[in-house]
């Protein structure tokens, strides 16, 4: 609680309420490029059913989605495209980097491959595995939901910093 009491207290509770709503209604954008895209399909299909965790509505348009699941390789030709898509998404937005290729380049340390998409966009949750099993992706989704509830994600931190700057000005 801050010095000016009541108002701040209400704001934080309100943010909690918003975060609760946000975390349970994620709209994923599947950016599936290669092998991990197939496992992402498994997660969405009837066997694992990602809809159980509130991420049911898959949207292929960056304007309509708030969770970018980067599944698979992003090479140097694709990296600017990924950046474009990330920039097109409306705040708040979250990123899951699925698989070794997206997280670090994996076994492909070669001339054409980005060594991790975190060189291009900020990533909230990394999923290890080549490709990760659907359980891994579901776990990542739950972890992301926890972090959204706590307000720890990149997007929320940016938002808080922006608000602080608006309030106090740049020091």
């Amino acid at each position, binding site marked *: 609680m801050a010095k000016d009491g009541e108002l701040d207290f209400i704001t934080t509770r309100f943010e909690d309420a918003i975060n609760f709503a946000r975390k349970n209604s994620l709209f994923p954008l599947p950016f599936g490029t290669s092998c991990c895209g197939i496992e992402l399909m498994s997660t969405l299909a009837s066997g694992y059913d990602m809809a159980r965790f509130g991420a049911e509505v898959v949207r292929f348009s960056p304007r309509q989605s708030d969770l970018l699941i980067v599944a698979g390789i992003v090479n*140097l*030709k694709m*990296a*600017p*495209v990924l950046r*474009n898509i990330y920039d097109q998404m409306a705040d708040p937005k979250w990123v899951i980097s699925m698989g070794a290729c997206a997280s670090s380049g994996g076994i492909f*340390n*070669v*001339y*054409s491959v980005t060594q991790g998409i975190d060189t291009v966009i900020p990533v909230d949750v990394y999923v290890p595995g080549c490709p990760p099993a659907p359980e891994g992706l579901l776990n990542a989704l739950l972890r992301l939901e926890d972090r959204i509830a706590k307000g720890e994600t990149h997007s929320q931190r940016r938002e808080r910093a922006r608000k602080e700057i608006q309030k106090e000005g740049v020091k």
Partner: protein
Amino acid sequence: MDIRTPVPTIYGHFHEKYGPTWAEHTNALKESFGDAIEAILMPVESPVDMPTIFVKKDKAHELLSELKNKYSYSFLTDMTATDELEDEESEKEGIRFHLVFHLMNIESKIRIRIKIKLKDAEKIPTFIEIWPGTNWAEREIFDMFGVHFEGHPDLRRILMDMRWEGHPLRKDYPLRGYQIFLTPEPLDPELLK
């Protein structure tokens, strides 16, 4: 075990089956093309799995179209290239690339391999009139090795970004020679005219 031992899983298998036909075809080609054929490697005698014909660049198109029309090797399975830098024999001759064609007889399913030796920065006419499917294969070879095909309608890079420098599959290109671009590759509306 020697590489040429005829057990079903290695080169001897197809040689036993198709050996006479291969000999017939290669002899006929030798007669009709003479000096244009530099060498013919046959399985068992040399470590190849199918007859490999080295043909001179000038007569290559003629040979390929004759193989296609007369001997009905009408199916182009694969077209690729190899970089022969650091190879002693090629270095003596001043050869840099081998252009490799894998052809298949669509009726009897026999295969044959044609090779063309190329020097560095040497150009070769396109094969698009013989097989339209070589269009992208030639673009890939251009992209990966830097072999220029004269008369190709659309010789651009195919796998790499069009702003890429160098040719990745050359032996002197480093494995980790990254090149980073900040904007997506532009598309050319001119190509649709």
